[in-house]
C-alpha cells in the first residue's frame, strides 16, 4: 500500500495499490424500508489494472461505482484512494479528488446540453486554475485522442450516441486522472460503437491509467484484464483474464459500415 501523500504518477503502470476497499456497506433508506445495496464489499485494485465489474441487475454495481467515484458516501466500511481515507474528507476535498484524480463516464453520457463538445470536454478544467488557453489546448487534445478532433463545435444533440460517449470520455480524461471509472459506458451503444469505445479504454489503460468499468456484456468484459462479479451486494467471484481481447484488432475485422465516420 502506498503511503498517504505519495502521489503515484499516471505513468506508473504497475505496483502501488490505488483503490483499497474494505467491508463496504451501503444501505438506502426508502421511508421505513432499508435497502441493503452493498453488504460488505472488499476489493483492492492496483495502479494500471483494467477491471470489469459484472453482475445481475440490482446487484449493487452502480452503487459501488458511485462510492468509488466519490459521488456517494458508503454507510459503513473504508475506502482508501491512493492511500487517502476518503471517508474523512470534506465536501470540497472530495470535489478536488473528483476533479483531478478520477474521471467518471456515465451510461447516459451526462453531457451539458446546448454546450459544445469542446466546452463539455473542458468542463473539469473550469474548476482548476489553468489559463483559458491551456484549458482549450488540453480539451482539444483529449477530443483528438477519442477521435473527435473534427467535431469540437458540435452540440450533443448534433452527435451520435457513440460520439457523445467519446466526448464524455474526453471529459473524463482531460484532467489526466489516475483512474477512469465507467458505469456501463457501452450500455446505450451498438456493438460496433461499443468496440470503438473499448478500444479507447484499452489505449488509455496502456498509457497507465487504471480503468474500472461496469458492464452486463461478457463480450465487453473480455477486453478487460480482470473480471469481478457482484451478486446481492457482495463480490461473488474475482478472476484475472489472462488473455484480454484486443479491441483495435477486432474492430479491423469488422466490415466497414460507416466509412465516413472512420475517416475521422
Amino acid at each position, binding site marked *: 500500500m502506498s503511503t498517504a501523500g505519495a502521489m503515484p504518477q499516471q505513468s506508473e503502470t504497475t505496483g502501488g495499490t490505488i483503490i483499497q476497499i474494505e467491508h463496504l456497506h451501503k444501505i438506502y433508506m426508502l421511508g421505513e424500508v432499508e435497502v441493503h445495496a452493498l453488504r460488505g464489499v472488499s476489493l483492492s485494485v492496483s495502479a494500471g489494472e483494467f477491471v470489469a465489474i459484472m453482475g445481475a441487475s440490482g446487484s449493487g454495481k452502480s452503487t459501488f461505482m458511485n462510492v468509488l*467515484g466519490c459521488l456517494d458516501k458508503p454507510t459503513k466500511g473504508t475506502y482508501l484512494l491512493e492511500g487517502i481515507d476518503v471517508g474523512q474528507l470534506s465536501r470540497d476535498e472530495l*470535489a*478536488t479528488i*473528483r476533479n483531478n484524480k478520477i474521471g467518471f463516464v456515465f451510461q447516459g453520457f451526462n453531457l*451539458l446540453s446546448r454546450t459544445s463538445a469542446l466546452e463539455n470536454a473542458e468542463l473539469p478544467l*473550469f*474548476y482548476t486554475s489553468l489559463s*483559458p488557453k491551456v484549458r482549450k489546448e488540453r480539451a482539444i487534445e483529449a477530443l483528438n485522442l477519442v477521435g473527435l478532433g473534427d467535431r469540437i463545435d458540435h452540440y450533443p444533440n448534433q452527435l451520435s450516441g457513440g460520439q457523445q460517449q467519446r466526448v464524455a470520455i474526453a471529459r473524463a480524461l482531460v484532467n489526466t486522472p489516475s483512474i477512469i471509472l465507467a458505469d456501463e459506458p457501452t450500455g446505450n451503444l451498438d456493438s460496433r460503437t461499443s468496440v470503438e469505445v473499448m478500444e479507447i479504454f484499452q489505449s488509455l489503460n496502456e498509457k497507465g491509467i487504471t480503468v474500472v468499468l461496469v458492464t452486463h456484456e461478457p463480450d465487453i468484459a473480455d477486453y478487460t484484464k480482470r473480471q469481478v462479479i457482484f451478486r446481492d451486494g457482495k463480490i461473488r467471484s474475482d478472476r484475472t483474464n489472462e488473455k484480454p481481447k484486443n479491441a483495435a484488432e477486432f474492430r479491423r475485422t469488422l466490415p466497414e459500415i460507416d466509412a465516413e465516420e472512420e475517416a475521422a
Partner: protein
Amino acid sequence: MNITNILISAFRALQRNKMRSFLTMLGIIIGVGAVIAMLAIGQGAEYSVQQQISSLGTNILMVFPGSSQQGGIRMGAGTVTTLTEEDANAIARECPAVAYISPGARSGGQVIAGNLNWATSIEGTSADYLEIRKWKVEYGDFYTDQDVKAASKVCVLGRTVADNLFPDSDPIDQNIRIRNVPFKVIGVLARKGQNAMGQDQDDIILAPYTTVLRRLSYSPNIRYVLVSAVSAADIPVAQKQIEELLRMRHKINSYESDDFTIRNQTDIATMATATTQIMTILLASIASVSLLVGGIGIMNIMLVSVTERTREIGIRMSVGARERDILTQFLIEALVLSLMGGIIGIILGVSGSQVISSLAHWPTFVTVFSILLSFGFSFAIGIFFGFYPARKASRLNPIDALRYE
C-alpha cells in the same frame, strides 16, 4: 472557475430562456425606473421651491408676529397681534441696513367689474413692494406713499386678473368692486408667468396695505413685514437691527424671548425644502416596494432554475465543482438579472423623468446619487434574493443531483 467564464455561462443560461429572463428583469426594471423617476420628481419639486423662494426678491427678510418658540408664524392670521404698523414704520425709520419695507396684509374674494367677476387674492403692500420683489408695472402707475398713507381705494392688477375682468377694454381708471368695496384700477403688472410650482403669479391684485387692513381684512393687524436689506452682506446686520429695535419697542427684558420671528431667505428655503424632502422620501419608498417585489421575482425564477438544472449541477459536481463554484455560478446569474434590470430601469427612469418634465411642465432632476442608489439597490437585491437559491444548489449531494429526474 474564473469570472469571465462564470459570466459567459450566466449570460448563456439566461439567454436560453429569453422571455423568462426578461419578465424576471421587468420587476427590477419597473422598480428601479420608478425609484429614479420619483426621486427626480422630488428633486424637481425641491428645485421649484427654491426657485420660488429666490423669486421672493433679493436680500429679503420677513418679520412675523409671535415667537418661533410658540410656533408663532404657524398660528394663523390674527391670532398674534404683536406686530403693528408702527413697528413697521419704526423699522423703516431706524434701521440703516434696511432698504425697503412693505407691511403685508392679505385678503381674497370675488372681484367684480361690470358684468364680469373673478376670484383672486388681494395682497396689501407698501409703495416699495415692487422694489423689493423686483416686479414691474406694464402700464399705468403703481400707488404712492401718499396713497398708502391715505388708504386710497386704488389697486394694481396682475395680468390674469386684468385679462379676465377686462378682456377687450383698457382697465386703467376703471372701477372694480372687491368684496363690494369699490377700487380704482391704476395699473397693470407685467406678466410673470407661472412660478416653478405651476402657480399663476399673475392671478393677484395689489393694493395699499392700509386700505386692505381697513376695508377688506377682518383683522386690523398686519401679518408680516417684508424687508429688503441694503445688500446681501447687510442681511445679518439688518436682522440684528430689527431684532434690537423690536425688543426695545416691545419692552422685552434680556431674559425674555422675542415675541416676533425674523426669517431670512435661507431659513424660509430650509423650511420649505424639508417639506419637499419628506415628499421625496415618501415617493421613493413607495417606489422601492416594487423593487422588493422585483427581487422576489428573481428569487422565484432562480429557485425554478435550480430545480430545472439539478442534473447540470450534478454533472458539474461530478467533474469537480466545489460548493462555492456552484454558489457563485447561480449568484452571478441572479446578479446579472438584477443588474441588467437595474441598468435598463435607470435608462427608463431617466427618460421617463424627461417625459414627465416635458408633458407636465414639472421640473425633474435625475441626480448621480439616485442612479448610484438604484444601481446599489439592484446589486443588493441580486445578492440577497439570489443567495438562497444559489446556496440551495450548492448544498446538493452530487449523486442526488445526478439522479434527479
